[in-house]
């Protein structure tokens, strides 16, 4: 048993309490991909304002009185970076590195990280939220969508694990 990390059951309960706090104060749950979406919208509308204004996607988030970076998820994610950094500092885990299974090269790890990120980014928009926003938060409010996200996400990853095994074991 790896004892460097917190007991997973304790971590689960604490994470659940953080989620409950978000519900109690803000009436909404956690998320992550939404903060990246805000960044994409901001970058595109800065570089190509006309393109953004004419697009049915970007135009939903920009316009008078709307500033995509002043969103709940953007501030939450800034907190995640601070919280993660504090935890890593306390545990002595702050280190620039490419973590990968020793059986594969660092480059291979980065290529698959990139592919995985692209798919996750695309899928999170299609599925209206990622693991934290749709699956975890959705399940906590008993939303059908949350259960579908959880089942399809974990189910697909389990089903394909065999084909990706050389990357991990």
């Amino acid at each position, binding site marked *: 048993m*790896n004892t460097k990390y917190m007991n997973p059951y304790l971590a689960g309960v604490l994470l*659940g309490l953080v989620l409950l706090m978000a519900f109690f104060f803000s009436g909404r749950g956690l998320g992550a991909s939404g903060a990246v979406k805000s960044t994409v919208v901001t970058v595109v509308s800065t570089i190509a304002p006309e393109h953004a204004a004419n697009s049915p996607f970007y135009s939903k988030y920009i316009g008078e009185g709307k500033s995509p970076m002043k969103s709940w998820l953007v501030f939450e994610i800034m907190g995640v970076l601070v919280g993660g950094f504090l935890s890593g500092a306390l545990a002595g885990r702050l280190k620039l590195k490419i973590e990968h299974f020793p059986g594969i090269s660092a480059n291979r790890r980065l290529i698959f990280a990139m592919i995985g990120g692209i798919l996750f980014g695309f899928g999170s928009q299609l599925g209206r939220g990622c693991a934290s926003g749709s699956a975890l938060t959705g399940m906590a409010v008993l939303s059908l969508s949350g259960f579908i996200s959880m089942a399809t996400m974990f189910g697909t990853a389990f089903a394909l694990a065999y084909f990706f095994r050389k990357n991990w*074991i």
Partner: protein
Amino acid sequence: MGPLIPQEIIGQDWNLFIAFIVGIGFGFILEQAGFSSSRKLAGVFYGYDTVVLKVFFGAAVTAMLGLLFFSLFGWIDLSLVYVNPTFLGSAIVGGIVMGIGFIAGGFCPGVSFSAIAIGKIDAMVFLGGIFIGIFMFAEAYPLLESFYMSGNLGALKLSDVLGISGGFLAFLVIIAALGMFWLGDLAEKKFPREEY
């Protein structure tokens, strides 16, 4: 009484500050649990480390029960808590695409931020991928819009679909979670790995 901000018991100005504080808790716990390591996360799919399963279901059950009890005690008005709407087709396909991303990349977006915070370069690349993926979706949106909006069932709860109470569904989820915790421990014994 709650949720405090939608009912303006606490001013709207505090909402982003609360988000930041909630985020600190979120990021701290993710990192403490070991979610800043893709090899630990991917372990659940090969049985050698099932921490994802335990933390994810532990958190879901805790928050689910918390909301039900808060509602019972009159501490929160559940009608003011956001329930993500269900769009059947896009939810299923989106979940499948994310599942492939999960096994390929070893992270999900939330945990990748906690990994970036401690210096994982693979997580930074993963985040770059998320950015590109969202950009691709945004550019392709005119083509995808009709599928994206199809099968709209509204803010539907699973308990309503099954015709059972929220409490009973929570009870079933707890039973399922306990079963998965037991399976997780079994898998870790069956597929043990040394330091990784």
